[in-house]
């Protein structure tokens, strides 16, 4: 009787696990099926390097969108990574445990805020601030980078706190015994030991920033143009798909799927990078 209950549980969980993997595979296959023929027909080099996106005339170059995505993600990392890692260090090393137990869930609450709310705050508060003090239309690379930087903070802080917490206390005690101050112990010993976990958190945050759509559509301005400064409006790969998908037919629609393939590849690379960096630490 107990054995058959065991077997049933095994089968049910196997089915559930398979369905999760199957849905991921099906999504990947569908996107590739729609997008890959277009890339092969149009020429991958043309597709990725041409700055001409005029679907009505058959020009499908996504270079401006790729550059925009790169700039915005880089900006978001410049803002989010130092803040996040510093916050994680502060939370793990310099804050008493009971206070940390209250603050950490509050930060994780930030991760639960829908991205459209972030976008709304960006449009209502951040864009006018940028426009009045720095110039330009306000809806810009800078606005998107700031909003995304704040959005990825919970990811970086959570994972970095876990990584720093996994460093054995003997490391800290050894450093202090050798005469280091607390800050020296932290940045010379603990951070170096937790390095791969922190890097993994930054890479995962990068993946999230690249894939963010709603907030970016609301604050980035959606102009198809290679940006020359951080105060110019841009359109990212994700925003392009979201804005044009509903009205696209034929080759235009396939081009958008091909953009999806590019995004898919980028995020897969970032995620596998994060996983290998993380596992290297465990192996050491």
């Amino acid at each position, binding site marked *: 009787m107990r054995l058959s209950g065991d077997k049933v549980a095994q089968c049910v969980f196997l089915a559930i696990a398979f369905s999760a993997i199957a849905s991921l595979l099906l999504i990947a296959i569908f996107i590739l099926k729609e997008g890959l023929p277009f890339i092969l027909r149009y020429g991958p080099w043309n597709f990725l390097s041409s700055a001409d996106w005029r679907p009505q005339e058959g020009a499908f170059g996504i270079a401006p969108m790729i550059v925009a995505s790169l700039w915005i993600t880089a900006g978001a990392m410049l803002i989010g990574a130092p803040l996040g890692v510093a916050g994680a260090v502060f939370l793990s090393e310099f804050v008493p445990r009971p206070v940390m137990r209250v603050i950490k869930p509050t930060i994780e609450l930030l991760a639960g805020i829908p991205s459209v709310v972030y976008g709304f705050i960006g449009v209502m508060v951040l864009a006018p601030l940028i*426009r009045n003090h720095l110039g330009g*239309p306000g*809806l810009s690379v800078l606005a998107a980078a700031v909003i995304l930087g704040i959005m990825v903070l919970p990811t970086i802080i959570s994972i970095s706190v876990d990584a720093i917490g996994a460093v054995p206390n003997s490391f800290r005690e050894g450093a202090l015994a050798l005469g280091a101050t607390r800050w020296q112990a932290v940045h010379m010993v603990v951070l170096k030991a937790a390095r791969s976990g922190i890097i993994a958190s930054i890479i995962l945050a990068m993946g999230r920033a690249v894939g963010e759509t709603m907030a970016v559509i609301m604050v980035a301005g959606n*102009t198809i143009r290679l940006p020359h400064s951080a105060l110019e409006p841009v*359109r990212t790969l994700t925003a392009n798909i979201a804005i*044009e998908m509903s009205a696209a037919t034929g080759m235009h629609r396939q081009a958008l799927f091909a953009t999806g393939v590019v995004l898919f590849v980028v995020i897969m690379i970032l995620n596998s990078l994060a996983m290998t960096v993380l596992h290297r630490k465990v192996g050491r």
Partner: protein
Amino acid sequence: MSILKLMLMPACLASALLCGCGKHVESVTLAGSTAFAPFAEKLGGQFMARNPGTRVSVQGGGSTVGIQSAQQGKAQIGMADMVKLPPEADGLTSVVVARDGVAVIVNPANTVANLTMDQLRDIFCGKIDNWKTVGGKDGAITLVSREAGSGTRSSFEQIVGNVKLGANALVQDSNGSIRETVASDPLAIGYLSHGLVNEKIKALTIGGQPCSTATVLAGTYPLVRPIFLLTKGAPQGAVKAFIDFIVSAAGQTQICKDGLLPAK
């Protein structure tokens, strides 16, 4: 035994959810023009009040989405606000239910009050890029446009003629977002459905003609387009009843009250 309980719970929840679908409800789905969508919702509310047992649901997406949804059956009625329906809409039955002016809007702080059609064309093509060229204060013009599939955009560009949108134009995906962008940026210019103009923005006069019901009906305001409701084949049942309601005297009075113009 607990595994069985675990599987039984979602099954019970699912059947409880499906229980709500007992009554047979006639549904009318509309999709398309974001200019007409808010008015369609109000008319839908009135229609549902008169005909309990029907549900009217309205989605946006832009006029091109409206045409495609009607074609593919994703929605029963497609809403399109275009000067002339494109060839893709040839197989669909269309009814004009209202007319709408396209107002050119600027921020209330902008001193410019009038533009000629030529100035309008040059501004939107990017040839004029500073407000002082058209009589305003010195400042770079921020162009705000709709996305490529929008009926408002294609009507605007068709009527103004020869508009190749300037490379620096911001793109927003609905009439509402254009209004919000122009309301918060003193140097912005955009266009939206005349029915959606409110006190946060200022509508310009074009060639001396203000955008108002009187001028649109008289034909003196140039930027006017009809609003089509498209169905695949002749409308039937609840769909026909809804369209008939909109075209009837009661529906047209409501349309006028809401700020659009009647079909005739």
